[in-house]
């Protein structure tokens, strides 16, 4: 029974760590792409929409807040 509890705790920590990682990469990525596109309009947004990174960052931030 104790082992099962440890396993669940391990799983939870892993997903929390992953959400933290995803948040860092996507949020910093979004901020960098936004800055580049502000300086040179179209450099990023001609090819992709960086808002998707922000959406992923928000979802991971919600996971981080609720799991804390």
């Amino acid at each position, binding site marked *: 029974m104790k082992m099962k509890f440890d396993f669940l705790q*391990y799983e939870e*920590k*892993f997903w929390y*760590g*992953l959400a933290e*990682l*995803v948040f860092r*990469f996507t949020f910093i*990525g979004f901020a960098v792409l936004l800055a580049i596109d502000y300086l*040179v*309009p*179209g*450099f*990023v*947004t*001609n*090819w992709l*929409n960086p808002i998707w990174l922000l959406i992923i960052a928000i979802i991971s931030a919600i996971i981080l807040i609720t799991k804390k």
Partner: protein
Amino acid sequence: MKKTWLKRISLVFAAITIGFAIWLVNINFPSYDALIIESELGQDLPAISKLGPEPRVKLVEGYQTVLESPIYFDLRAMPWFKEAQVHLIYKEEGLSLAGVGGQAGPGFNYDVKTATINTDQEDGWQKAVFYFTLADVYSPKNINRFLISTEPTSLTDKEGELQIKQLKVILKK
């Protein structure tokens, strides 16, 4: 164990980020010095807009039909591209292609040019190529506006149309 997996995932994310950065730089600074931007007729793309305004053009069986002149499209080109070649494949059905012009200044200020190269293709389609120096085209926030002008094929033709099959812009450094 947990940290090892997170470190591995972190490395994968870092590799994806580096790969993405290389792709983005390569697409904006093409190694072959030319960037081809092709319009999807009737659809707004981030790099090139659809032809407009709407009442003057309509999409019929995948072709853009021009009913009235002038019509416009916007191109978002990076400032390091010095030259733009506008390639048009069209068919004259009562309206002929008079020229394409780049916006030279704010407001209705266009420098309309006739085609530098005009070749006949099969089934009555023609291909016209127009050359523009982007330094001469007004470009607020890297957006260049181009005008397509038509004229009646003959004075007796009151109603006609010009069909456009392909609109492609080749940007060169």
